[in-house]
């Protein structure tokens, strides 16, 4: 295996992007930041991979227009996934493993506010017996939250604690769409929205884009003082049907975690768009109580479709670059009620020895 590190990260997150869903306007400055962080030009990038969806954009081939932001003369080596940035990163990591390239920029973008996000996401469900009922994202998460509440695996207070900590941490995150903690009591006093969920239990609909820079071996050391080396990377999927899996668990998250070396992880950025999902993930990944969760505020503060998972990895990498942590975890989810889970463990040179 080649040593590959995350050496660059840029993001934009907002409540409503007043511009084209192709998001070229957001991507150009993101790439400029990546070039500044690495000292590269676009010609130093061996591979590009993007994550986006035409269902979100409301137009065909939205990812083709986005390529304008790269500039393609001379031609670039480029790919696309209809998945979150974290999976675009997985493809780029594999591409680097092949030895064909040494460097990659992966990016993702989405304008969720152009349509009704929780409705649009019904199209990722089983198309015969689910999509015709248009079960929205919030409802599916509500069924999952209720199952855990009924089973006594968590309570409303534990959910509110997650939300309060996230909104408090989000105060330090300039990109957070929703921020400002109060108290668990105050949150619990707020009205139910989609019973058993209150609004602060659900990630805000967010627009945005993000980019990660990957480099192998010496290429990473050249451009980054403390590269965040990818020590483990794993992705598993649970069945799509809501009836055949125990919604209070996430076997795919458990398996992804088990496939990684989680020993000594100090910080975990978990992609949990609903408060109870963080509780499931912490349990399935077996994270100890002293692991710091989501210092960025996490997805409850801001959850731009197609970049929010990759942003978790970028936020985790920042912890390594700054020297605050030597071993961190970034997680991304996709599909209804934590159906798909990707775990990425990053470590500094020091953290890699442990």
């Amino acid at each position, binding site marked *: 295996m080649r040593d590959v590190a995350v050496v660059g990260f840029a993001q934009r997150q907002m409540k409503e992007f*007043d*511009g*084209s*869903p*192709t998001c*070229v*306007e957001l*991507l*150009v400055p993101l*790439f400029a930041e990546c070039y500044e962080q690495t000292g590269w030009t*676009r010609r130093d990038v061996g591979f590009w991979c993007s994550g986006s969806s035409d*269902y979100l954009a*409301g*137009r065909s081939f939205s990812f083709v227009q986005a*390529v*304008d*932001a*790269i*500039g*393609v*003369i001379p031609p670039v080596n480029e790919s696309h996934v209809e998945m979150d940035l974290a999976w675009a990163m997985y493809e780029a990591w594999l591409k680097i493993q092949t030895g064909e390239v040494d460097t990659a920029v992966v990016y993702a973008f989405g*304008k969720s506010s*152009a*349509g*009704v996000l*929780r*409705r*649009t996401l*019904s*199209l990722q469900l089983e*198309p*015969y*017996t*689910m*999509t*015709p*009922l*248009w*079960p*929205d994202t*919030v*409802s*599916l998460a*509500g*069924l999952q*939250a*209720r*199952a855990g509440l*009924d089973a006594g695996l968590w309570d409303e207070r534990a959910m509110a604690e997650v939300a309060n900590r996230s909104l408090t941490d989000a105060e330090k995150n300039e990109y957070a769409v929703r921020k400002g903690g109060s108290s668990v009591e105050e949150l619990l006093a707020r009205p*139910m*929205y*989609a*019973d*058993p969920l209150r609004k602060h239990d659900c990630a805000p609909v967010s627009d945005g884009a993000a980019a990660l820079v990957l480099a192998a071996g010496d290429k990473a050391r050249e451009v980054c003082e403390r590269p965040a080396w990818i020590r483990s990377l794993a992705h598993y999927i649970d*069945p799509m*049907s*809501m*009836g*055949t899996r125990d*919604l209070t668990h996430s076997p795919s998250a458990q398996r992804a975690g088990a496939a990684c070396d989680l020993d000594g992880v100090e910080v975990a950025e978990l992609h949990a768009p609903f408060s109870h999902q963080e509780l499931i993930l912490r349990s399935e990944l077996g994270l100890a109580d002293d692991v710091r969760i989501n210092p960025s505020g996490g997805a409850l503060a801001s959850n731009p479709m197609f970049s929010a998972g990759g942003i978790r990895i970028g936020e985790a990498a920042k912890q390594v670059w700054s020297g605050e942590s030597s071993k961190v975890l970034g997680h991304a989810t996709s599909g209804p009620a934590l159906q798909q889970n990707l775990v990425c463990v990053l470590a500094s040179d020091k953290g890699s020895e442990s």
Partner: protein
Amino acid sequence: MPRTLSAPVTVAFDYTRSTGPVLGRFLSGLRDGVVVGGRTSEGKVVVPPPEFDPVTHAATEEFVEVADTGTVTSWTWVPEPVKGQPFDRPFAFALVTLDGADVPLLHALDVASPAEVETGMRVRVRWRSERKGDITDIECFEALPEGGTGSTVQARETVDPVTGIVVPIELDYLYAASPEESLFYTSLSEGKLVGQRCPSCGKVYIPPRSACPADGTPTSEEVELPDTGTVTTFCIVNVPFLGQRITPPYVSAYILLDGADIAFLHLILDIPAEEVRMGMRVKAVWKPKDQWGTTIENIDHFAPTGEPDADYETYRQHL
């Protein structure tokens, strides 16, 4: 005033899907007023039946009729239903394990408030009177009255099995133009054609783009272009299609405006289709000013200027 122009857009398509034998069996059952589950290798009865066994991956072959009464195992309130959901007023989504099944089925539960639902509540299927073999043949679940039994449905008909379904998908957006595209459309409403020049390579794009596709540099300098240009390539449309506004044959062409580095698509009229050619010089024919809006349709079409054809060399880079 918003920074950009935007307009509502609806994207719609009726997906036709073949069901295969397992889902076909399930949906045929619904049409006949019966819920059919599949038995897995572990002996569980699963509704809807999985096409393949979750453990052995063998095709599901054993089918079991289950009751249309059952128990709520989880539920969530839907305070603001979205278009296409079973109800357009608040309702609950529920997971219901039907009597005789081992795992729950997702569907709507018709209750007036969250106070009327609880996990463990007994419910029954409310069948639609006109059933056609899809999941909405179950209108919803409803509370099972004390001492009540399953729903009474009409006698089962013997008809062909369900082999396909049609799922209409319709998505509504507010589609925004980029600032550069907004400038282009606003200028059109004033009868002007405005593009942008790339500061790095000097190329002029119309409509303007947020970045030069050749080098990724944001374009900034506005360039007003004339409404004359050259046909770089074209096609004669002979095939009728839905929504066609002109009777075929007619010509769609790429037109390179004088001073532009990218051609755009428009109509060539006022000339027999067979006489249109590469290099032909054309000029915009604008609609009457009182019909102008923020749209390229302000130009009704392009028509020949009568000038000699442009040299191939002047547009060969743009093919």
